[in-house]
């Protein structure tokens, strides 16, 4: 509701996105990506889309996070870029 | 009901050899049955074409529409005098060529004979389709079918050379087909119709001049490939690697004649003499054709291989027809149309002779022919008749057509065309004379025994065609009224009185 909070959330989103794409350790990238989706969920809550926010938190952040971890466990943690 | 028969005859005539194709393929293990099918189809086809003669001679046309191909355009046949004229020549000579091929293929124990006879049958189907096509799209349809059907014939030997020739042939012919399609599409967009019209479907209308020229060039290239007009002729001598009856078929009956048939259809029925003259298109055609006549004759002069020499001679003679049509006069058209049949009978004779010599003695170079006339008098006698006719001497039908062509160039006031015809006649004599000299007046090579004539399957057809050439001079209306048909066709195109 407060646009100042929203701006903070957006900045957090940008930072998380850049971080997720930037770090070389894939596990760290996965954590950043999960943080990104979780921030998105918070943003939805702040915009009154409560149902979307919860779904995003559970499905987006939760399941995608699990996917990432599972995939990285099955493959490798290192990345060149 | 006889009327009903005639209404369906065009389609049946096209269909009969197509229908024979599976039978030929199925009988691949039994040569006698296979050749029986070929001959039967040839005879039935000739009969069907003949059955159309009375109606057309009376000045009418036989029309038949099968189905709609594209909106406003049907797959339709319309047999007019000109189409019937061509169909008669093609189907008549098919019978002879079939007999001859049987002798040739067996004598030479060629492989893949079944494929040969099958493609042959399809080619004839396509040729009759071209002759009877009532509109441009139907014409193109059979034109492309002919391209595909003759491809196996061109590559018959399947060696490197043959495959290269086949590639060249396909590249040229399919590109030409595409240009025809585009040109027809333009005409359709302009006039809303693709029906052939005696006198030209484009004449009378007001069309942009630049576009007319471009489209004319497309059509010229389109039919020019098959009729061997000069920059597009190179596949023709290359296709010489095909077996000889194929050369005979390519050069006298089907492919190249459909090309020049297309030229006359284009001049007389698509653009029309009036529009041709108005836009100066006839001069373009005349220049291309004239240059081809002279250059091809000169090149023929230099060839040492008999079949190659005949091939270049063919290129030259095809352009006679184109040049005759370009004159746009009554006599010019008459000469052009008559030259189709004249050249057909004469050139097929010559190729039959070359093939008979090759099968019998395996000689293909002109230098090897010393004294051969004494061993094979009938064959070489026919050869003399054919070559004299091509040079334009009486009493052979080549004289007749040339006479009209010369008269046509006088009427048109194109003395250059006249010069071309005369010069080419001299060149013809010059390149055929040495062959005859060798055959009859040089001694045979030392140690060679007289080997006698080739198999009657080959000698009889070639004598028949030579006889035909003479007979058609003496009695131009013999058998099938070719002369009258030509007159009817010309009067349709020029709108004047038919027989000059």
């Amino acid at each position: 509701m407060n646009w100042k909070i929203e701006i903070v959330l957006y900045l957090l989103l940008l930072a998380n996105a850049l971080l997720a794409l930037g770090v070389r350790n894939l596990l760290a990238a996965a954590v950043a990506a999960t943080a990104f989706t979780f921030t998105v969920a918070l943003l939805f809550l702040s915009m009154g889309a409560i149902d979307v926010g919860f779904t995003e938190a559970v499905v987006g952040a939760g399941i995608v996070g699990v996917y990432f971890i599972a995939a990285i466990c099955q493959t490798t943690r290192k990345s060149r870029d | 009901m006889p009327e009903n028969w005639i209404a369906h005859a065009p389609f049946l005539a096209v269909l009969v050899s197509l229908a024979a194709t599976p039978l030929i393929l199925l009988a691949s293990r039994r040569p006698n049955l296979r050749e029986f099918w070929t001959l039967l189809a040839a005879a039935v086809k000739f009969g069907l074409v003949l059955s159309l003669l009375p109606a057309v001679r009376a000045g009418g046309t036989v029309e038949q529409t099968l189905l709609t191909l594209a909106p406003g355009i049907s797959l339709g046949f319309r047999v007019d005098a000109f189409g019937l004229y061509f169909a008669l020549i093609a189907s008549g000579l098919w019978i002879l060529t079939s007999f001859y091929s049987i002798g040739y293929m067996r004598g030479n124990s060629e492989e893949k004979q079944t494929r040969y006879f099958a493609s042959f049958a399809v080619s004839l189907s396509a040729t009759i389709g071209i002759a009877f096509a009532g509109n441009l799209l139907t014409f193109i349809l059979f034109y492309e079918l002919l391209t595909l059907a003759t491809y196996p014939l061109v590559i018959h030997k399947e060696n490197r050379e043959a495959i290269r020739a086949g590639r060249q042939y396909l590249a040229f012919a399919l590109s030409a087909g595409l240009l025809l399609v585009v040109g027809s599409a333009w005409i359709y967009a302009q006039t809303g119709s693709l029906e052939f019209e005696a006198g030209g479907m484009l004449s009378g209308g007001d069309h942009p001049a630049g576009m007319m020229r471009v489209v004319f060039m497309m059509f010229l290239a389109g039919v020019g490939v098959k009729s061997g007009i000069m920059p597009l002729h190179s596949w023709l001598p290359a296709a010489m690697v095909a077996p000889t009856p194929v050369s005979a078929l390519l050069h006298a009956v089907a492919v190249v004649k459909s090309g020049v048939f297309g030229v006359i259809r284009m001049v007389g029925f698509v653009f029309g003499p009036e529009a041709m003259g108005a836009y100066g298109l006839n001069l373009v055609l005349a220049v291309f054709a004239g240059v081809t006549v002279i250059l091809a004759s000169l090149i023929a002069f230099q060839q040492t291989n008999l079949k190659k020499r005949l091939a270049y001679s063919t290129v030259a003679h095809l352009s006679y027809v184109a040049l005759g049509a370009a004159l746009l006069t009554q006599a010019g058209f008459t000469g052009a149309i008559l030259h189709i049949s004249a050249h057909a009978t004469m050139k097929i004779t010559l190729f039959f002779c070359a093939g008979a010599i090759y099968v019998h003695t395996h000689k293909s170079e002109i230098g090897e022919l010393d004294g051969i006339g004494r061993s094979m008098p009938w064959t070489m006698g026919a050869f003399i008749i054919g070559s004299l006719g091509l040079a334009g001497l009486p009493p052979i039908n080549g004289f007749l057509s040339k006479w009209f062509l010369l008269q046509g160039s006088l009427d048109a006031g194109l003395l250059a065309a006249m010069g071309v015809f005369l010069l080419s006649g001299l060149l013809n004599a010059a390149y055929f004379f040495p062959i005859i000299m060798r055959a009859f007046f040089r001694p045979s090579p030392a140690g060679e025994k007289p080997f006698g004539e080739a198999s009657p399957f080959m000698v009889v057809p070639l004598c028949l065609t030579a006889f035909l050439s003479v007979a058609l001079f003496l009695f131009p209306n013999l058998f099938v009224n070719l002369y009258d048909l030509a007159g009817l066709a010309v009067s349709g195109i020029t709108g004047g009185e038919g027989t000059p």
Partner: protein
Amino acid sequence: MVDFIHDNYAYWAIMLLLVIGLYGMLMKKNLIKKLIGMVIFQNSIIILFVTAAYKWGATVPVVDPGRSTDEIANYLNPLPHTLMLTAIVVGVAIVGVGFAIVISIYRNFQTLEEPELLERMK
């Protein structure tokens, strides 16, 4: 100035996120990084929809006894929200397929880096 930021900051941020996501999908060489880019890209589109449905001063689309239900401006449009629920699920499904494929690529070629992958495929 404040007004301008106030009116548009969301769209600017979303555009930036879209570009970042696209960059990740197309330019990153690591396959998992590409998938992360995809997650960012999809989520920013979802944010766009939700932002578009957002109205200042409106409340969640649940009937509030204190507000009139006749006044449309009092409530958010719930339609984009429901749509985005579907979009999130679809997006996750795609990411799931992506991971399955990544794992099978790794089994076949033992690498997740695109240049090495192309090298080993020859």
